[in-house]
């Protein structure tokens, strides 16, 4: 857990190219953390997505927008106070939460035992995560896939439409209509 924390510390210090790289390392550390926390499916996804695709996208975007963050006049006190204040309030709130790894916490008692007890009999799939993902919460996952689809279309419109407009602007009497 502390490994991940050190990863972050590095993230927000350097210039953009370095921070994209450190974000990839951070993601890989998170993946190993998920394995420690028994979430193998999540670890798999994080390793593939976070350390792979995200880093590539970040690097491509940085190549397009410039790799150096301009130095601002340093006045970080208000944001620092805001985030520390939020953190303090949240920490105060955790004092009422169940302890880490507690088998009798409210989160473990509601539907999860049902999935674990009946999942294989009802779906024939030993990996409960897959069973819940596709069968019990299938409607939810349909929504997620639709969100991903929409995001893809959104990127296509944002970046593909740009090309068309650029072509229009090279023509002599092009207006700047959006």
């Amino acid at each position, binding site marked *: 857990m502390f490994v991940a924390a050190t990863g972050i510390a590095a993230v927000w210090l350097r210039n953009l190219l370095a921070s994209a790289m450190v974000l990839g390392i951070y993601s890989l550390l998170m993946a190993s953390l998920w394995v420690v926390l028994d979430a193998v499916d999540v670890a798999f996804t994080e390793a593939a997505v976070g350390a*792979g695709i995200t880093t590539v996208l970040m690097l491509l975007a940085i190549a397009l927008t410039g790799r150096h963050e301009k130095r601002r006049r340093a006045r970080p006190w208000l944001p620092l106070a805001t985030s520390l204040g939020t953190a303090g309030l949240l920490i105060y709130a955790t004092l009422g939460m169940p302890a880490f790894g507690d088998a009798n916490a409210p989160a473990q008692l509601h539907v999860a035992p049902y999935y674990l007890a009946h999942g294989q009999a009802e779906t024939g*799939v030993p990996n409960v995560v897959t069973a819940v993902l596709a069968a019990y919460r299938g*409607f939810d996952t349909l929504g997620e896939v639709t969100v991903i689809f929409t*995001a893809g279309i959104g*990127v296509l419109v944002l970046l593909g439409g740009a090309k068309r407009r650029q072509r229009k602007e090279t023509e002599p009497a092009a207006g700047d209509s959006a």
Partner: protein
Amino acid sequence: MSDFLVLRVIAKLLIPFILLFGFYVQMHGDYGPGGGFQAGVIVAAAFVLYAIVFDVKTARRVAPMAALVSLACLGVLLYAGVGVANLIYGGRFLEYGALAHDPAHGNHIGILIIEIGVGIAVAAVMMIIFFSFARRR
């Protein structure tokens, strides 16, 4: 794009295995960690690796944008279509018990088809995103 011989050879060696691993993850999602989301990303990663090491143009010819968009649509529609098929067979939306005589068996079939739909959609969308970023260079 890259002139490094080692990179090109290793990438050429790796890409078939990455694709194969992607399909394995897709089909083995019922029994071990994995599933449509992971498989889609891994397959997309193979194409991304190819595009980075060799040439974005060549990669785009293998996977043209129009085909990717229709694949993404196909994935989402496959998912929703399984739900509708359940309605037709007399079940509820996305409740796969009606797909076979035995509800458990029907569930298994439904999960498999849905994971394939997810995999296709995720892979296509990831490649759409990557190629639209890479095109702007």
